[in-house]
């Protein structure tokens, strides 16, 4: 490396600190950052996917003690027609014993006239542990507490969809839903 070259390099090094270079570099980096936004955003749910995220379900056809399962946007939901025994089992639980305390009433939405309909329970159908779909009355296993049983890692849910035993940390979440008529619920994601 000759002397003349070194000085040239030093001069260049000095120039790098010049405002104009910093400004140009900063503008280029900022631009690259802005370009990243659409590239990341494009993986979010698309318009049609978001729009197809509600469903109206007729609950009058659910047999007593049975349930129906629906998919909304590919996610499973349970609608269960509970027996009187199941309702009272769900209502008579000591809150302090629950891993995720929630009353049965808190987990219901009112009918169009404002009263609650404890006969119908609407919950998400994805186990809060790792997302398996618990088995229920139609599959012949309801777990130790009469609700649902997750076969993947052994979580037991009661007749209100609350976690009672097993690795799942939370109750089966209640989706956003409303009674459009006394026999039709509209579930949204």
């Amino acid at each position, binding site marked *: 490396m000759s002397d003349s070259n070194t000085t040239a390099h030093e001069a260049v090094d000095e120039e*790098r600190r010049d405002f104009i270079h910093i400004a*140009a570099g900063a503008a280029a980096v900022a631009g690259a950052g802005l370009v990243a936004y659409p*590239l990341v*955003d494009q993986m979010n749910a*698309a318009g049609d996917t978001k729009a197809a995220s509600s469903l109206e379900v007729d609950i009058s056809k659910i047999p007593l003690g049975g349930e129906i399962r629906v998919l909304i946007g590919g996610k499973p939901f349970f609608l269960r027609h509970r027996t009187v025994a199941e309702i009272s089992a769900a209502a008579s639980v000591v809150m302090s014993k629950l891993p995720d305390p929630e009353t049965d009433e808190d987990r219901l939405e009112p009918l169009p006239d404002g009263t609650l309909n404890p006969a119908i329970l609407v919950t998400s159908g994805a186990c809060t542990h790792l997302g398996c779909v618990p088995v229920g009355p139609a599959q012949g296993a309801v777990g130790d507490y009469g609700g649902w049983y997750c076969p993947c890692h052994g979580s037991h849910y009661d007749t209100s969809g609350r976690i009672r035993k097993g690795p799942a940390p939370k109750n089966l979440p209640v989706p956003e839903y409303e009674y459009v008529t006394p026999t039709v619920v509209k579930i949204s994601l």
Partner: protein
Amino acid sequence: MSGHESTYKPASGFTKWLDSRLPIIRLAHDSFVDFPTPKNLNYWYTFGGILAICLAIQIITGVVLAMHYTASVSEAFGSVERIMRDVPFGWLVRNIHMVGASMFFLAVYVHMFRGLYYGSYKAPREVLWILGCVIFLLMMATAFLGYMLPWGQMSLHGANVIINLFGAIPLVGEGIQSWLMGGPSVGNQTLNRFFSLHYLLPFMIAGVVILHIWALHVPGNNNPTGVEVQDVKKDTIPFHPYYTVKDGFAIVVFLMIFAVFVFYAPNVLGHADNFIEANPLVTPAQIVPEWYLLPFYAILRAITFDLGPIDAKLLGVLFMFGSIAVLFVLPWLDTAKTKSMRYRPVAKQFFFGFVISCLLLGWCGASNPDDPLIAMGEDKLIVSYIDTAGLEGTRTFDEYEAAAEFRDEQQAAGATASMAVKKAPAFTFKILSQILTAYYFAYFLLILPILGLREKPKGEPDSIHKSVLGDHAPAAVPAE
């Protein structure tokens, strides 16, 4: 330069540790920071950097599009429109990818013409040039495959026409054709394999680009004088920051042109028929490839005659592929010792003629070959008739009234008569494209080999720094 000594000095403990195990920082430093580059490179030399950006843009946007695209004949068209309508910023990503293909070719053509003008294909850069030709071929294949994916009318029928070209090959042609299509026609299976290959090829391009840069860094850059570097200190400057900033500036200017198309005219470079979903029963009225393939399409269509045992169809295909194949052997066709056309006054004129003929070939490719470019005389009317005695005859008219009267008279007399237009002889696009095709091949096969032996170069400087300092005669200052 070949064997230029590495000036990289690892500064920290970690870089020292890494350098003795995987000298990747050293490689980057020697290739893109301290690489000695001729100090006289002009803006035509920034297109290499522009092309690297184009490839990156196409790969990034392409990966994004593949997340949303469905390769199935029943859903492809709708899935592309879904990207335009529902995917967040999908319209932007798709427009960039679509316009990006055109921009990529625009840049690669400038890059190639620059190489042709400054003799960058000559020793010791033959392998560099050939690798470039390989990239160009891969680009054309990728573009063709990608054009099929939206499954519009042009996608389907364009693919059909190109695949049919292979059918011209004697004996094995039809076998290759149905092997490519995976069936008797271009269908779902073809779309699936084209999507797979369209995703694969850009990464092959990226691989060959690495070889291309490697082959560039062994002999070092050519430069507008075509004179090799003699004194690294006087003739060269380090790549960074001198050429990073110059390339950066050119890239941003290029991106502005790019952005104008993306935001204001995303569809203007494509064909409207591709917004009609593919229908195998109806071929579009005029089937043309994307603009960047038009010159080759014109060469294909220019060949309408048989040559000995070779029929016109095969001959056209041979000419079309020949027009690219000739680029591969160019380093051995050009016999001139002087690299840069700056100092070859006669060759320079032929070169500009070559550029113009390529552009005009593109025009021919976009036009109907039988359309008159210059009509010689007026179209006439011709009435053909067979009279009651069974005699045939024709009569030519200038005026419609006279022709109609004659036809009616004949019909009244019991003859059959009909009128048709007789086109005036004309200089058609077909003839123009034949002339241009002849020039295209003559440029490589006759002009460059012969001219190189006979032409006397003028004003070639002894070295790069002397040329920069203006030591040579001002008369020879080239025209850029």
